[in-house]
């Protein structure tokens, strides 16, 4: 039942998109209620699906034949398993919150209904992405969410920086997407199917493997890296903060950027079978986590800090996946979605409350002016740091446990360092924004708390941030009707019953405390005195961190010198070889041969008649010879 109707999850928002895009401007309130209604309705549908799903055999498949050419038949359909079932509530709940929040945040903006329309399209695409049972459909949805991201980053296209950011996001992810496409095609060529479950069964039966599998998975992982902003494709995500803040919460924190994680999790058996891929995933995740943590130290824009934090947390997820902890990775995805969406929405609330100020050096002491925002932001921050017993703590703890169980000490040490960094920059962000004295009196003067329609979602998400972590416990989950904790639902080799390792809890708390201590020490009551000293002690390093290790400059250099150089050569080739020789040359050749051959055309009728008769005679003679 549920699988038959699950496609409605994607279809309802798609219809809402069409209605909003075409008639949104003429609807009452420009149709924002339609967006909320849509997401609410699919939330209801999701609950219905959940109630039907419990006890059913997973995965549930429902496919229709799409087209059939010769012996190649292509069927599209949906597949629902536990990975999907974890993703669905995350997407829908966050989308609902963001939709509600946007009513307040986007009020009075131009293209108000278009904003909601694209939001619905994004929801549809994202749900399609997680529901797809084959890689081709997944790729289509993958590109659709990319388009939505592009449209929403460039929502304020009057701003040049927004346009640049949109282009950057689109082009950077494109590099990964091409890799994904190549990987899909390679897999199809090797097996003749796009179906994920069939592919996995191919791998499990050893019919697919070796270099083919490794190369295809490497390409697919490139796609995942591009979408999930892993090193070195991370550059687009901080710039994507040019979009409206609720969009950052939905797309660039909670849902779209975790598509890469979702993809890797989906195909993890295949990654595991491709020798060496797991190590690559781990290393990429670690490098990203640490690098983003460092860069986040020096950022002064709230959203930029959060963006690097997101990149870093995505690195955590990849590390978890890389060490085989699929349950840990998906669990972190689950919890992270809530508290990071909370933080972004909180940042949005701050930005709106301070009339579009998001530089930390202009803020400070906001806790008194915006108590609800401040408290929910604090809850989100603590969850992000991993304070016991908030959501982030449990997921980070499972990751640490997975890493400890997996490759061993070096990775464990590195992930611990990243964890400390998380605590540090989170503390820094909160202290500089909400505590101390206002840095800019003029800003502080006008600051006010946001309306209920914005704080409501903050409170809801704060509740989720507190309690989402408990879904790791079997008993807690069973109370909600689930068969077991997340790590029991999603597993690679065998279900892992979660139990609290108190030594790890202590270790994890110690890491948080270290990070927090440094944070507090440097930024107590919003002071930057000590941190400025530190920056002046080694200005080169500070500069490097602030400039994000010169990644943008490096890319710019590559584009300017290498790619433009190649382009010049190619354009020369195109202009002189292709155009002048190939295109014009063939034209000239045709003209010249026409000039030569036109003398055959005497215009005299008897000559033509002669030719006709000769032709007839030849034909008849040939026929005679052929027929003997």
């Amino acid at each position, binding site marked *: 039942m549920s699988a038959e109707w699950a496609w409605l999850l994607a279809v309802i928002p798609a219809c809402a998109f069409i209605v909003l895009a075409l008639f949104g401007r003429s609807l009452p309130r420009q149709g924002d209620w339609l967006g909320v209604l849509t997401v609410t309705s699919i939330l209801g549908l999701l609950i219905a699906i959940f109630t039907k799903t419990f006890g059913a055999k997973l995965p549930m498949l429902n496919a229709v034949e799409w087209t059939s050419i010769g012996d190649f038949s292509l069927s599209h359909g949906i597949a629902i398993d536990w990975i999907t079932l974890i993703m669905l509530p995350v997407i829908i709940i966050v989308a609902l919150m963001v939709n509600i929040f946007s009513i307040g945040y986007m009020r009075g903006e131009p293209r108000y209904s278009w904003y909601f329309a694209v939001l619905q399209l994004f929801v549809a695409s994202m749900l399609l992405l997680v529901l797809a049972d084959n890689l081709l459909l997944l790729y289509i949805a993958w590109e659709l969410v990319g388009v939505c991201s592009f449209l929403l980053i460039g929502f304020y296209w009057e701003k040049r920086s927004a346009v640049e950011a949109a282009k950057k996001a689109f082009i950077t992810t494109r590099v990964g997407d091409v890799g994904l496409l190549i990987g899909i095609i390679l897999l199809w060529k090797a097996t003749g199917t796009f179906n994920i479950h069939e592919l996995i069964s191919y791998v499990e039966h050893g019919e697919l493997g070796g270099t083919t599998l490794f190369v295809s998975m490497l390409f697919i992982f490139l796609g995942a890296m591009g979408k999930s902003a892993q090193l070195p494709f991370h550059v687009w995500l901080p710039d994507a903060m040019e979009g409206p803040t609720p969009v950052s919460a939905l797309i660039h924190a909670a849902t779209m950027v975790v598509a890469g994680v979702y993809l890797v999790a989906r195909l993890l058996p295949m990654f595991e079978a491709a020798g060496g891929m797991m190590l690559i995933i781990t290393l990429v995740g670690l490098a990203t986590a640490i690098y983003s943590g460092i860069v986040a130290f020096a950022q002064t824009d709230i959203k930029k800090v959060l963006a690097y934090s997101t990149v870093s947390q995505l690195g955590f997820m990849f590390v978890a996946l890389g060490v085989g902890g699929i349950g840990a990775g998906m669990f972190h995805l689950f919890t992270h979605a809530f508290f990071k969406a909370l933080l972004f929405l909180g940042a949005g609330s701050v930005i709106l409350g301070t009339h579009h100020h998001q530089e930390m050096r202009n803020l400070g002491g906001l806790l008194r002016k915006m108590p609800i925002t401040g408290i929910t932001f604090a809850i989100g921050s603590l969850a992000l740091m991993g304070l016991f017993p908030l959501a982030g703590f449990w997921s980070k703890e499972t990751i640490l446990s997975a890493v400890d169980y997996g490759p061993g000490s070096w990775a464990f040490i590195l992930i611990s360092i990243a964890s400390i960094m998380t605590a540090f920059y989170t503390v820094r962000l909160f202290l500089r924004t909400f505590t101390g004295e206002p840095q800019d009196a003029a800003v502080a003067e006008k600051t006010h708390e946001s309306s209920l329609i914005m704080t409501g979602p903050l409170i809801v998400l704060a509740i989720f941030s507190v309690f989402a972590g408990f879904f790791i416990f079997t008993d807690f989950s069973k109370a909600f009707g689930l068969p077991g904790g997340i790590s029991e639902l999603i597993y690679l080799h065998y279900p892992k019953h979660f139990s609290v390792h108190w030594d790890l809890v202590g270790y994890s708390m110690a890491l948080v405390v270290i990070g927090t201590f440094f944070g507090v020490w440097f930024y107590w009551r919003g002071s930057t005195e000590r941190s400025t000293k530190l920056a002046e002690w080694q200005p080169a390093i500070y500069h490097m961190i602030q400039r994000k290790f010169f990644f943008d400059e490096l890319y710019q250099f590559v584009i300017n010198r290498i790619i433009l150089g190649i382009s010049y050569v190619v354009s020369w080739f195109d202009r002189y070889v292709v155009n002048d020789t190939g295109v014009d040359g063939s034209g000239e050749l045709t003209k010249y041969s026409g000039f030569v051959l*036109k003398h055959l*055309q*005497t*215009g*005299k*009728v*008897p000559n033509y*008649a*002669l030719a006709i*008769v000769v032709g007839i005679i030849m034909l008849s003679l040939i026929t005679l010879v052929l027929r003997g």
Partner: protein
Amino acid sequence: MIPLENYLVLSGILFSLGVYGVLSRRNAVLVLMSVELMLNAVSINFIAFSAYLDVTQITGVIFAIFVVAVAAAEIGLALAIVLRIFRNRSSINIDEAAELKW
């Protein structure tokens, strides 16, 4: 009795003469006459086949009658065109009506 081959060879000769006339004559009216010769050769064949091979059905005869009708239409129209050419160019030499080249 006259065998069928006699008619066929006769019509072949007639047809070849017509082809030669069409190809080598310069006068448009003569070309039309040669075309008539060819049509007649065809008609002979039709009727000969009809009489020798298709006795019960007289398809060939009917076809010959249609050939006559079409030939009448063709000659009427062609001569009108020839007349028009003559009025425009004062000549019905078809070699000279060669503007359509190049």
